[in-house]
Each structure stands twice: as C-alpha cells, then as structure tokens.
C-alpha cells in the first residue's frame, strides 16, 4: 500500500515537472522568438501550463496557509438557504455562473488594443497578472465575503477599513460604472458605424429579446432553456438575413448610420432597458448573450487549436516608445491599464462579493471558483491576443487607428502604415472590407472590428473558407455587440439603483425603487452621465478610445486596489502578517500603475497623452485665431471635455490616496498594538452536511 502511494507520488512529481518544463519552453519561445512568425500553439501551451502550475501550487498555498479554508464550517448558502438569494449550488454550476458573470468584453477588447505594443508585453501581463494579482483578488475577496454572510465590497470596506472607505468604494463603483458604460458603448458605435449588416443584426436582437421576454413571463414562466434555444436560432437567422439587408439599396440606406446617430440610439436603448420592467428586455437579452458568449468563446478556443494560426505581429513593435496610433503612451504604465480584465479587474470583486458567496456550498470550493474562473478569463484574453496578432500588422493598424493619424482613404492609410515598417496596400484593405461584407474597415478604433476580422479568419479556416468570411465576421460582431449591450443595460440598471439609493438619503421618495418619477429621473441621470462621455468619445478627433479606454482602465484598477486594500486589512486582522505580501504586492503594483497613469494622463506634455496639454494646445490655437469660425464651438467643447477628463482622473487618483491613508492608519494601529483588531466575521457554525468533495 505504502509502495503504491510512493509510486503515485513520484508519478505526480514527474507529471508536474513535465508541465513546468513545457511551460518554461513555451514561455521562452514566445519571449525570445525574433524574425519569423510564431505559431499560436506556443501561446496556448505557455498559458495553459502556467495556469495549471499557478492553480496547483500558488492557489493551494493561499488556500492552506493564508486563508485556511475550512470545509467543516457552514457557508451562508447552508445557514441561510432560502431558495432565492442563498442557494447551495454545485461547484461546477457555480463556476459556470461566476465565469459568465466576470467574463465581459474587457478580456477581448483590452488585449486587442494592447497588441499595438506587439504580442509580448500583453501576453506576459495577462498570464502573470492573472496568476499573481487577478486570481488572488477574486479568491481572497470571495473568501472574505463568504465569512461575512455574503457582504458586498462596499460593506466590507466600511466595516473593516473605515466608514470613509465604504463611501469611497461606493463612489468608485459608480464612477467606474459610468466610464465603463461609455467606453463599451463607444466600442459598439465604432463596430456598427456605416455597417448596415451589423446594425440590422444588432437592432433585430431587440424585438427577439422582447418576444422571449413575453414568452418567459406569460407563456412558460422561467423556462429559460427552451426560450434561449428559440432566441439563439432567431439571432443566427438575422445574422444571415443581414446580408440581404446590406444588398438591398433601400434597406442598406436605412441601416447605414453615422457615429452620432448610433450613439443617440444606444443612449435611448440604455434608458429603455433601465426604465422598462426587467423581464421584458434586459433579462431575455442576458439569456441570449450568455449562450452566444459561451458558444463563441468555446468556438474561438477550438478554432485556434484546430487552425494553429501563425502570429504575424512582432513580439515588440516600434510603438513601445509611446507613439502608438491606437492609444498613446509607453508600455509602463499603459499596457497594464489597457489590459485590466484578463489580468486583474476590480469589477470582479463586486461579483466575488455579490451572488457567488451566497451560493457556494463549501469554503473549499472558493479556490476552484474564485481563482480558477479568473484563470479561464485570462485564457480568453490570451486567445483574443492571438486573434488580433494573427492578422497582418498593417491591417491591424489600419483598422484600429483614427483617420486623424493614418488618413481616411485606403491609399493614405496604406502609405502611412507602410512608412512605419508594416507593409500594406490600399487594395488589401479594400478587398478585405469587401470580403467581410463591409464598405470600409478603416478607422474602426475600439478593438471589436479587428477582433471580429481575426475571429472570422480563424473560423473560416475551419468551416466554409473565404465564402463564409463575411458571415463569420458579422457573427463575431453580433456576438461582441450583443454581450457589450448586455453589460450596458445591466450596468445602467444597477447605476439607476445606486442613484436612487443615494438620492433616497436626501429625499425619501427617490429611494422607493418602484416609484415611477424616481425611476425615470434616476435612469435619465445615469444614462445622461455615460451618454455624455460616449458622445464626447464619438466626436473626439483622436477616435475617443485614446482618452476613454485609459480612463476606464484607471477606474477599474482603482477598484482592484480598493479590493486589495480591504483584503490586506482583513488578513492583518487575521494575524497573517507573514503572508501579507500575497495581497500587499499586487496592491502596491496597482497603486503604482494607477498613480503613474493618472499623472501622465493629466500632466504629460505630450498632447496625445496629457489631457491638460492637449486642452492648452487647442486653447492656444483658438486664442491665436488659427481655428476656422465653423469649428470654434466644436473646439471649445473639446477643450471643456479634455479638462473634464483631467478632473475625473484626478478625482479617481484622490480617492485611492484617501483610502490608502485610511488603511495605513488602520494597519499602523493594529501592528503597533494601539488598537485591538476587530473582525466582522460571522461566528463559526459547523456544517450539517456530510463531508464530501
């Protein structure tokens, strides 16, 4: 028996050594490969082996030494089982729930944008950031929330750090929500601009969602699977039907919309989704999105494994110097701000302290769900990086660069981009646009169209060849836009609730969630807030993404820093000083990148980076009379918007500084024994369930 155990142990050591060796070879290959294109299989191997090792070793260490997960302790789902919020759920099912909740468009769009530095910085940050920061945050916050009856991050910040800490967390959530919604809406606008096929397809998902809503509410309450099956079939049909619309001279004209019109249409949609009953539009769209998201991500992974495309982007491009056309700024700090979701995302801490802790069956499952689901999201980010880097670099830059930098015609763009050392002809862009059924693919900043081209090329290499390229492209656009709109409508509604809650403190009726004037007013306020930033992005001559995406990245990483400050404070109170670096180091890293990026975005003398220097440069041109009379009002508005962006960035930076000071005072008091640490954990209750798993 003992001999058998020894053999088993030896075999395990051998297997894990082989995984480590394979991972090291794969990482070394992608890091040191120069010259020729590299096969995408190396990316999959490097990521998969690193994740397996991180899960096997680091997460096990955190679970055992730092958190001491206790399977004999009853979780909130067991103690408070009510069949509604607190529902004990199988760990695989909850993993699926948690992953569906944390995986949004961020891990797809962020890596696509960061590909302008080359594939290497983004890929390494995705893998290392997830293993040592993102997964740690999700796992530790989930654990803290389980031990506190499923309390939210804001509640834990208030109880464990300070009252001011709680308020900062709430304000950070509201701010990030506004900027997030604006930036994802901008991604959709840039994907649908001048594309009748894509606009028609996405517009049709609204009546489909309404149909499902009525079906689920009145005919078959709660029968989500059958309704979703019907909905997915209809959505796939409208993806194909979009081609007929694009080919019809009359219908194509109706669905060919400019950026500003699309922005107002999305703003109107956001208002409707927030104010209408949730069962009518929001929930059925979410069901559709969840199924299509799962299908598309699985297909992308399968496609990459089957096709094993060559990665044509070099490991490092000339834009590491900060002069990138997609967004301005050097690798440090902007790569780490651009890729938030996929490496570390503060927003995840809201999910880890939201529904998941109320449904977990055993504390031990927190490792698999908290740490494991984030690893999977990081893998999605690596696949998005592969899809973006598998296309010719010239094509990538032509799609993602604004017209003010590369020019508005295929020939002008080709000349500029070829001049950078990435050969491209105008004919390539024209024929690619034709092949995917678009009028143009130029100047589509935002990441969605280039990701869709990358996905379509991978899918069409598996099924259908060039004949189906346009269908695959529009399927990919529909998939991205559909689940971005799901984030948009769900986020708008949550923002509405936050405003109603805050408003209720000032004027009681505002806090009544079913009071119609309150619903309309708060919906208008939240939609107006993100709608303003969206409009600003749409009319921005630099494409909008250049200013809004870094702002979103800063806000998201700020929230991650808040979560890690809360986690570190709780660990200190648990007397885990020896292992405090597990959360302290990623927290310090996030504070450094958030502060550096904020400083550069506000004060950099480079007008493409610094909000104030760009505003001052425009103001100087205005004062010197160098602006045409017709453009004076537009320029004044741009100057105001840039100063507003600078103010928002400064407020975000100030919030994290205040929270840090609060936390440092608390830590000093605990470590110097001036204050007895008071933990807000719920008392231990032994589980009544049989020990299993």
């Amino acid at each position, binding site marked *: 028996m003992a001999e058998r155990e020894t053999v088993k142990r030896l075999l395990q050591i051998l297997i894990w050594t082989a995984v480590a060796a394979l991972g090291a070879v794969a990482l070394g290959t992608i890091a040191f490969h120069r010259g020729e294109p590299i096969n995408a299989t190396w990316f999959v191997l490097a990521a998969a082996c690193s994740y397996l090792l991180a899960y096997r070793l680091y997460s096990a260490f955190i679970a055992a030494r730092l958190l001491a997960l206790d399977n004999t302790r009853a979780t909130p789902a067991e103690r408070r089982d*009510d*069949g*509604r*919020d607190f*529902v004990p*759920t*199988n760990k*695989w*099912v909850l993993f*699926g*729930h948690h992953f*569906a*909740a*944390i*995986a*949004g*468009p*961020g891990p797809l769009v962020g890596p696509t944008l960061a590909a302008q530095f080359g594939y290497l910085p983004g890929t390494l940050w995705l893998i290392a950031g997830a293993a040592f920061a993102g997964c740690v945050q999700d796992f530790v916050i989930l654990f803290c929330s389980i031990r506190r009856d499923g309390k*939210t991050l804001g509640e834990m910040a208030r109880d464990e750090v300070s009252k001011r800490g709680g308020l900062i967390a709430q304000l950070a*959530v509201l701010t990030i*929500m506004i900027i*997030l919604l604006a930036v*994802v809406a901008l991604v959709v606008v840039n994907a649908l601009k001048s594309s009748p096929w894509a606009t028609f397809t996405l517009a049709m998902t609204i009546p489909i969602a309404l149909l499902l809503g009525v079906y*689920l*509410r*009145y005919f078959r*309450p*709660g*029968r*989500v*699977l059958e309704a*979703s099956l019907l909905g997915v079939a209809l959505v796939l049909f409208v993806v194909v039907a979009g081609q007929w619309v694009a080919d019809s001279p009359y219908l194509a004209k109706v669905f060919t919309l400019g950026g500003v019109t699309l922005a107002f249409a999305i703003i109107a949609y956001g208002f409707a989704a927030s104010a209408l*009953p*949730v*069962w009518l539009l*929001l*929930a059925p769209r*979410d*069901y559709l999105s*969840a*199924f299509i998201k799962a299908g598309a991500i699985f297909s992308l992974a399968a496609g990459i494994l089957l096709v094993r495309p060559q990665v044509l982007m070099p490991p490092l491009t000339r834009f590491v110097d900060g002069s990138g056309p997609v967004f301005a700024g050097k690798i440090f700090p902007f790569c780490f701000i651009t890729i*938030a*979701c996929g490496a570390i*995302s503060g*927003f*995840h801490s*809201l*999910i880890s302290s*939201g*529904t998941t802790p109320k449904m977990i069956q055993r504390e031990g499952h927190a490792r698999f769900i908290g740490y494991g689901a984030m690893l999977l999201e990081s893998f999605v980010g690596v696949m998005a990086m592969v899809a973006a880097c598998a296309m010719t670099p010239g094509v990538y830059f032509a799609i993602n660069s604004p017209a003010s930098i590369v020019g508005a015609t295929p020939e002008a763009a080709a000349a500029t981009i070829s001049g950078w050392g990435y050969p491209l002809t105008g004919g390539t862009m024209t024929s690619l646009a034709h092949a995917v059924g678009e009028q143009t693919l130029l100047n589509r900043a935002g990441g969605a169209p280039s990701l869709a081209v990358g996905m379509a090329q991978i899918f069409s290499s598996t099924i259908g060849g060039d004949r189906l390229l346009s269908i695959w492209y529009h399927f990919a656009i529909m998939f991205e836009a559909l689940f971005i709109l*799901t*984030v948009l409508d*769900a*986020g708008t*509604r*949550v923002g509405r*609730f936050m405003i109603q809650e805050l408003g209720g403190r000032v004027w009681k009726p505002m806090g009544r*969630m079913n009071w119609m004037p309150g619903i309309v007013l708060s919906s208008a306020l939240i939609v107006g807030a993100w709608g303003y930033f969206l409009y600003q992005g749409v009319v921005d001559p630099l494409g909008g993404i250049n200013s809004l995406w870094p702002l*979103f990245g800063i806000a*998201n990483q700020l929230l991650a820093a808040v979560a890690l400050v809360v986690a570190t404070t709780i660990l200190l109170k648990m007397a885990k000083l020896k292992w405090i670096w597990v959360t302290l180091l990623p927290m310090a890293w996030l504070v450094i990148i958030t502060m550096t990026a904020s400083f550069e975005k506000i004060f950099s003398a480079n007008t493409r980076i610094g909000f104030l220097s760009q505003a001052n440069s425009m103001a100087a041109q205005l004062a010197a009379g160098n602006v045409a009379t017709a453009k004076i009002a537009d320029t004044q508005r741009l100057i105001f918007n840039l100063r507003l962006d600078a103010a928002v960035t400064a407020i975000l930076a100030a919030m994290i500084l205040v929270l840090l000071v609060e936390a440092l005072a608390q830590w000093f008091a605990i470590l110097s024994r001036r204050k007895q640490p008071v933990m807000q954990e719920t008392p231990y209750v032994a589980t009544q369930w049989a020990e299993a798993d």
Partner: protein
Amino acid sequence: MQNLRQQFKLAFENFWRGLRQWSGDSAYETYLACAERQRSQKPLSATEFYVDQLNRKYSRPNRCC
C-alpha cells in the same frame, strides 16, 4: 456495453441537470423544494417567483466588463 451505456446516460443526466441549474431553468423547482422544507409561508407562483428573482438579480452588479 450496457455498463458503458449507463455511464453515458448518467453523464448526460448530470450535464443536463447542470445546464438547467446554470441557466436558471430549474430555479423554481429549487425554490419550491426549499419552501417545502421550511414551510414558513405560502410559496410564490412560478410567474411571481420568476419576476421576483429577476428583480433581485438585476438590482446589483451581476455582469462584469
């Protein structure tokens, strides 16, 4: 052969159960079972439960970026 078929059937049943739980398709059945155990008050109808569940779910952050 029969053993293999049984294993396949079991795996499919587990997958189907998991899919129904993940999608929310079986949420009302779970709720009814819980209400039956607790017998605290009259359980909600399927429609009432569905609307109540959606209102709860979409009043807090439940979809990330």
